[in-house]
Structures are given as C-alpha cells and as structure tokens.
C-alpha cells in the first residue's frame, strides 16, 4: 500500500498513459475512417462507451472496496471506495454528456430513454447520494454507511438494467437508427475502441492512485494535528 504513493511508479504510469492516449486520439481522429452510416459523429462512440465501461468498473471497485472496508475495517479501503466513487461519478457525467451529443444528430433528439443511458442516470443519482453521505470529512460511522450504500447500489445494477430494459419496450424506438450505435464494428474500429478503452482505464487507475494518496495524506495530517493538540493540552 505504501508503494502506491511512490513518485517513480506514478511518473511511469503517467507517461504510459499519455502515450496510450495520444495513440488513441491519433487512431480515432486520423486513422480510422468514419462510420458509413453515421458519419463523423460516430467517433464520439469511442469516448462514450469507454467512459461507460470505465464507470461500471469504477462502481465495481467501490463495491469491492466497500466490502473489504466492512470486513477489514481499514481506512485504506475506505479511501479507495471514496476515490473510486468520485472518479466514477466523473465518468458517469461524461457518459451523460456524450450520450446526448451523439444522439442529437443521429436520432434527432437529445435524450431517448435507452436502457444504458437510463441506467447511467440512475447510477448517477445513487452515487451522488453516496458522495452526499460522505460530505463530512471523516466520520467512521458515515464511512460505514457509505460502504453499505456502495454495496447496495452496485447490487442494484442488474435489477435496474433488467427493469429499464423491460420498461423501455413500452416506448417507441427511435426510427432512424437501431440502439447501441453502429451496425457493426470493423476490425480497425475494434482496435481503436480497445486502445481508447485501455487509455480510459489507465486514466482511471492514475486518478485513483492520486486521489487515494491525497486521502491518505489528509488522514495523516488529521492524526498529526490531534497528536499536537494533545501534547499542547497535556
């Protein structure tokens, strides 16, 4: 756990991440030809789906970290849960922004209640509630409750997905395009998508590490402050 905050590891990670991102951007904007049916707007798909998958992964990390926190009662796991939730909400917002930007030219409408987007919206609500619950800087009882919410929220995901899909059948699908995006991915597109996904995941882990180390530093600072207070009083 200590090695997480080592500078050298961090810089290596950052460099690799920048390289992969540059490659991804090159592939997306220069190399891969635009989709035949959707045109250049389709390129947002790479960001949109990568964000969505990273978001799911982030919330999965929240769930696992929450379980570990309840089990082991270690502050580190709590910091991981909180950081993953913050970053997850960030990626979630990205999905909710890129979705409509994609939908508008393709479907003629800013928002259609398609299952993934709706699921993302509900997850946004759940994890924003998680962050609201954590608003207090550090309160162990609050951390425990947030951990419970982190677990409950993620367990709810398949149920939300199932119910939203069912619900969706009541609404007419957009006429122009079938859901889910393109009619199929060519190998070039698939490669580009995978590179983009890797870039996003690297970004997630980088942000996670940095955020966790900030949380740990903050924790150490508070502990030291308390020690000083005691020495002054006693």
């Amino acid at each position, binding site marked *: 756990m200590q090695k997480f905050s080592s500078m050298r590891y961090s810089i290596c990670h950052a460099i690799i991440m920048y390289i992969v991102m540059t490659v991804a951007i090159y592939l997306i904007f220069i190399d891969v030809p635009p989709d035949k049916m959707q045109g250049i707007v389709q390129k947002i798909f790479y960001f949109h789906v990568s964000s969505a998958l990273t978001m799911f992964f982030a919330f999965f990390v929240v769930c696992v970290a929450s379980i570990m926190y309840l089990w082991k009662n270690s502050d580190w796991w709590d910091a991981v849960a909180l950081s993953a939730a913050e970053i997850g909400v960030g990626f979630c917002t990205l999905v909710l922004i890129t979705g409509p930007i994609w939908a508008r030219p393709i479907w003629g409408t800013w928002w259609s209640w398609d299952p993934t987007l709706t699921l993302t919206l509900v997850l946004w609500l759940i994890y924003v509630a998680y962050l609201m619950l954590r608003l207090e800087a*550090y309160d162990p009882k609050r951390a425990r409750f947030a951990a419970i919410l982190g677990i409950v929220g993620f367990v709810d995901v398949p149920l939300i997905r199932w119910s939203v899909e069912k619900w969706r059948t009541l609404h007419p699908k957009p006429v122009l395009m079938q859901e889910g995006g393109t009619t199929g991915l060519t190998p070039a597109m698939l490669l580009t998508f995978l590179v983009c996904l890797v870039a996003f995941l690297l970004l997630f882990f980088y942000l996670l590490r940095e955020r966790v180390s900030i949380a740990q530093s903050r924790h150490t600072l508070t502990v030291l402050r308390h020690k000083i207070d005691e020495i002054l009083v006693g």
Partner: protein
Amino acid sequence: MSTPIMVHLEGVIKHFGTITALRGIDLDLKRGCCLGIFGPNGAGKTTLLRILATLARPSAGTVCIAGYDAVREAEKVRPLLGVLSHRTFLYGHLTAYENLQFYGRMFGLKQLTERIAEVLQIVDLMTYAHQLVRTYSRGMQQRLAIARTILHYPKLLLLDEPYTGLDKHAISRLQDLILRLHSESCTIIMSTHDLYRGLDLCDEIAIQCRGKIVYKGLSLGLDVQGFEQLYSTYVE
C-alpha cells in the same frame, strides 16, 4: 458461570476515526465488587461503558464478561447486563407497565407479571403503573429506568453518570438500590465525574484520564478529602 473474575479487560483500544478515546485499558473486576470510575469529561468513561455494554466494539484488545467474549459472544453477555444512563431508554407513549412488559418479553422472562409488580414496588411506582410515561416527572422516569435496568436480574450493572439531573430524593433512592444489589452479589461499575457521591458505595475506585486508567485501588479507609488529594495528583 462461576468464574470469580466478572469483568476482564486487556489492552482495550478504541479509535473513533482519528480520535483515540481509549488507549489501552486493563481491568479485572471480581464478582460482587463495586467499582467506581472517576475522571474528568472526555476521559473516555462513557466509551468504556459502551464497550462493556456491547453497544460499541473495541478497535483492539479483549473484553471478557463472566467468561464470555463480549465481542464474539455478545448475545450471551447482553442478558447479564443492566445499563443505566441519563437517557431513560423508555417509550413515552406506553405506560410503565407496558414498557416493562416489552423489555421483559425481549429478555424472555418467565412469570413476567409478578416480576413487573415486584420491581414497580421496589421503585415505588405501583400507583402510576398504568399511566403514560410521557406524563411522568423526570424523577419518576428515572425511577422507571431503574426498574427497567433490574427487571431481568442482571449480574453486571453499568451506571453511566447516574446522578445527572437527579434531586436529593432520587439520589438516595438510587444509592439504596445500589446497596441492595451489592448485597445480592451483583457486580457494579459506576462512572461519574462527581467526586463526592458514590465514594462510600464503592469497594474499589479507579481514576480514568485521557483514555487510560491512571489509578486503581481499594477505597477502604479513604475519605472524601483523601480521595480529592489522590484525584488531583493523578488528574492534572
């Protein structure tokens, strides 16, 4: 359980986030003994009692009550405990009788009606048994809280600042009860920051300061002035 040691604490530490409330408490208490824990506010007395009452878990250390591990076998420990605090733990919209009936059922007491009548007699609330508790005065509520505490024949009594908000009459009642239970070999732990009361009730006294027990000894032959001197040497 016939172990002579009723309460055994070893290396008990409790963190609340970054604050350490207890820094390693070691305590052994014999069955039938009455221990008074004195200390200033913030010493961690309430935290210690909450851990003994299984309402909180220690961050580290062992807590044994009547031979049971209070963390792993908490459900075996709870029926042995009677806890009295300055909050009464009572339901205002129920009568005294119903409150005691509820707790009696929770503890699975046999011959509940007779036992309820008995404790109401002890605290002298028989005539008000069927009035709603929210109509009671503070003193009456405290008396009912005492009845609730002793209802299930506890072997270990935990009193957290029991004198708070009580008038002279209620205080003498409480002291009578403690003496009575003491004579029935009930083990008692009482925490207070009031040096003058309770000293004569206790067999042993302990002084807790900033999360540690800084003094523990018999109260034999100690009068109020002597205790005051002792207290001021240990508590700055």
